[in-house]
C-alpha cells in the first residue's frame, strides 16, 4: 500500500466512522420509548457520588418496570468526569446524537452550569436534583432547567443558624471549600446567624482537595468560639472531621455542618469522629417516617449501603418527573406543556413521606430537619432528625422581591449583618 492509498483509506475510515452512527431526525411517536440522558461523574474525585446518582435513578425505573405512562423508558448514562468541558460535550452528544427527550443529573455545580448554558439555547428540559447554584432559581432562571427534588445552596443552612442561636451560641467561625457552592452555603448560615445577633468571628476558605487541614484546624483552635460551621464535601469532609478529632477539638468546640458534610457518602467510611455532628437538610436517612425507612431499607438491600443525598435526590427526581409524565398520559412532545406541568406539580409518595411543591421561582419548599449523627442499631452512623423547621423556602423569611435585589453571594459578600 503506498502512501497516497493509505492516506485515502485513513480519510475514508475517519469519515465513515464519524458517519457510522448517523441517524436522521425522526418524529417522535407515542409508542417510542422515552429517552432520558443521565449525566454523572463516574470518574474523578467525586466518582463515588456519581455512581450513587446512577444507582438511585436506575433503582426508581427498575421498580417501575422501566415504564412511564405505558411507554418504555430508556436511560442513557454518560460520564461527565466532574469536568464542565466534558459535561458539555456529553450533553451535546445526548441531545444531538442520542436524541433524548430530556436531560437529568450532574453533580458538581460547574458541570451543571455548563450544561444549563447549553440547554438554554435549545430548550431541552434539564432536571437537576443536586445542582444547587443559587441563581438557577433566583437571578438567572432558565425556564427549561428545573430543580426537581433539588435544593438551593443557601436554603438548607439557614434553619441551622436559627437553631444555633437558640442553643445560645454567640460566636461562630466558618470553614468552607473555596468555591461558589461553599460561598453560598456559608452565606446562608452567616446571614441568618448575624441577623439574629450572633457573630461570625472568622471565615476560613480552603482550596478544594486540601491534603492537610491542620493549618486551618490550628487556627480554629485559637479562636474563642462557641461552635464551628463547616461546609466540606467528599474527601475534604472526611479529612476535616478526622483531623478535627485528632487535634482534640471534637468535644471541645461543637461542630455544625452543611448537609453534604455529614451525608452518607461521607460518613459511611468514618468512625466515631463523625459522632454527634449537627447539620440541616430536607432528607434524613435516620428519620422514623415509614416512607423514608421503606426507601432506606430497599436501597440498602439493593446496594449494600444506605442512600446518600445523591441517590435519594435522583430517585425522587425520577419519581417526580414520572408522576408528571403519567399525568400527561405519556405525551411529552410539547416541551412547554411538559415544563409547565412539572412546575405546577407536587411530588407525592416520595421517600420524604410528605408532599413537596415548588415556590414561584421553581425551587422546592421543604420541611427541613436539624439532624444529628448517631449510631443506629446495626452500629452504622446515620443522620437522625432532632427538630423540624416546616416549609422552608429558598428565601427563608424574606420577601422574594426584596431578597433578589441584593447581589448574589460570593466569598466577599456573605450577607453578614454588622
Amino acid at each position, binding site marked *: 500500500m503506498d502512501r497516497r492509498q493509505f492516506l485515502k483509506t485513513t480519510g475514508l475510515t475517519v469519515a465513515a466512522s464519524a458517519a457510522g452512527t448517523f441517524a436522521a431526525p425522526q418524529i417522535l411517536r407515542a409508542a417510542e420509548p422515552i429517552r432520558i440522558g443521565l449525566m454523572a461523574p463516574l470518574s*474523578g474525585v467525586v466518582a463515588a457520588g456519581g455512581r450513587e446518582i446512577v444507582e438511585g435513578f436506575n433503582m426508581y425505573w427498575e421498580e417501575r418496570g422501566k415504564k412511564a405512562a405505558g411507554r418504555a423508558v430508556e436511560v442513557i448514562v454518560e460520564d461527565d468526569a466532574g469536568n464542565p468541558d466534558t459535561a458539555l460535550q456529553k450533553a451535546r452528544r445526548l441531545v444531538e446524537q442520542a436524541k433524548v427527550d430530556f436531560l437529568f443529573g450532574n453533580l458538581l455545580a460547574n458541570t451543571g452550569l455548563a450544561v444549563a448554558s447549553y440547554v438554554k439555547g435549545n430548550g431541552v428540559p434539564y432536571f437537576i436534583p443536586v445542582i444547587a447554584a443559587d441563581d438557577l432559581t433566583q437571578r438567572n432562571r432558565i425556564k427549561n432547567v428545573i430543580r426537581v427534588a433539588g435544593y438551593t445552596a443557601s436554603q438548607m443552612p439557614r434553619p441551622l443558624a436559627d437553631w444555633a442561636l437558640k442553643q445560645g451560641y454567640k460566636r461562630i467561625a466558618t470553614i468552607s471549600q473555596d468555591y461558589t457552592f461553599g460561598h453560598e452555603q456559608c452565606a446562608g448560615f452567616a446571614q441568618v446567624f448575624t441577623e439574629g445577633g450572633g457573630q461570625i468571628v472568622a471565615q476560613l476558605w480552603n482550596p478544594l482537595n486540601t491534603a492537610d487541614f491542620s493549618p486551618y484546624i490550628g487556627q480554629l483552635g485559637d479562636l474563642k468560639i462557641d461552635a464551628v460551621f463547616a461546609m466540606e464535601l467528599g474527601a475534604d469532609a472526611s479529612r476535616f472531621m478526622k483531623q478535627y478529632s485528632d487535634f482534640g477539638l471534637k468535644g471541645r468546640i461543637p461542630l455544625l455542618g452543611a448537609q453534604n458534610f455529614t451525608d452518607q457518602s461521607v460518613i459511611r*467510611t468514618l468512625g466515631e469522629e463523625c459522632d454527634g455532628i449537627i447539620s440541616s437538610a430536607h432528607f434524613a436517612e435516620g428519620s422514623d417516617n415509614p416512607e423514608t425507612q421503606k426507601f432506606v431499607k430497599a436501597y440498602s438491600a439493593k446496594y449494600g449501603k444506605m442512600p446518600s443525598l445523591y441517590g435519594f435526590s435522583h430517585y425522587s427526581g425520577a419519581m417526580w418527573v414520572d408522576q408528571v409524565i403519567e399525568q400527561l398520559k405519556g405525551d411529552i412532545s410539547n416541551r412547554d406543556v411538559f415544563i409547565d406541568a412539572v412546575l405546577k406539580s407536587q411530588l407525592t409518595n416520595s421517600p420524604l413521606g410528605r408532599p413537596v411543591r415548588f415556590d414561584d421561582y421553581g425551587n422546592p419548599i421543604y420541611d427541613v430537619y436539624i439532624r444529628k449523627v448517631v449510631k443506629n442499631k446495626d452500629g452504622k452512623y446515620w443522620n437522625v432528625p432532632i427538630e423540624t423547621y416546616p416549609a422552608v423556602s429558598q428565601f427563608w423569611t424574606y420577601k422574594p422581591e426584596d431578597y433578589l435585589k441584593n447581589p448574589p453571594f460570593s466569598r466577599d459578600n456573605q450577607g453578614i449583618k454588622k
Partner: protein
Amino acid sequence: MASLNLVQILNGLTLAALLFIVASGFTLIFGLLRIVNLAHGALYLFGGYIGYSVTLGTGNFVLGLVASMLFVAFLGLIIDQGLLRFVRGFVLREVLLTLGVAFVLNDIALVIWGGDTFSVQIPAMLRGAVRFAGIYYPTYRLFVLGLGILVFIALWLLLNRTRLGALIRAGVDDAEMVEAMGINIRRVFLATSMLGASLAGLGGTIGGAFLTLYPTADSEILVFSLAIVIIGGSGSLVGAAVGALLVGMLNTIGQVMFPELAYFVIFGPMAAILAFRPLGLFGRA
C-alpha cells in the same frame, strides 16, 4: 492574617516528614535512573489502599505498612522490567510512559476500591493527642515526624555505609563509569526502583492514616514530590529533606498567612528554582 505558633510549625514539620518519605523514593529514581516517574503518586495511592485493606483485614497496622511496601515494590519491579525496559534511554518516552501507567493504576484503584474516602486504621497507642509545652497535639502526627527522621537516617546509612549505597551514589554521578568497572548497573537500577517504589507505598499507608485516601490524592502528592525534587535537586537525599521541609512549611505558612496565594507558594518557588537553578539547590550536573 493569622500568625504562626508552635502548633502550626509542628503541622508544617509533620507534613514535611511524610512528603520526605514519598519524595526520597522519587529523587532516588530520578537521580539514578534519570526517570521522572510520574506514576509515583499513583504508587503512593495504591500502596495506601493496600495498607488500608490489609490493616482492616488483619487489624495490624505494621502488617499494613509491610504489605504496602512489598506490594508497591513489586509494582515497581513490573513497571521497570515489564514496561520501562522497552524505552530505556529515551527520557521523554520514559516520562510519558509512566504518565500512562499512572492513569491505568488510578483507574484500577477506582474499580477495586470505588471512589469513597478511606483512612487507614491506626493502633490505639497512636490515637488521641499528647499535651506538652501548653499545646495539644495528635500523637500520630508526632509518630509520622519520628518515622520521617528514621527513614532519613536509614537511607543515609544505606547510601553511605553499604556497598549498594556506594554503587547508587556512584551511579547518580556517572552510571557509565560504574558499568565500565564491570558492575551490573542494571541490578543496581532495579534495586533502586524497587526501593523508591516501596517508599511511595510506605508513604501511602502512613499518609492514608491522616490525610485519607481518595481519587486524585495521587496527583496532589505527585505535585508535592515534584516540587521537592526540583527544589532539592535530583538524587540528593539531603536535597529531598531540605525540599520537603521547605514545601511542608511553605504549604502551612501559605494556608495560614496567605490563603489567597495557596497554589502560588508551592509553584512559584518551584518555577523560580527551575528557571534560575535548574539542577536544584543540592543537585549536581
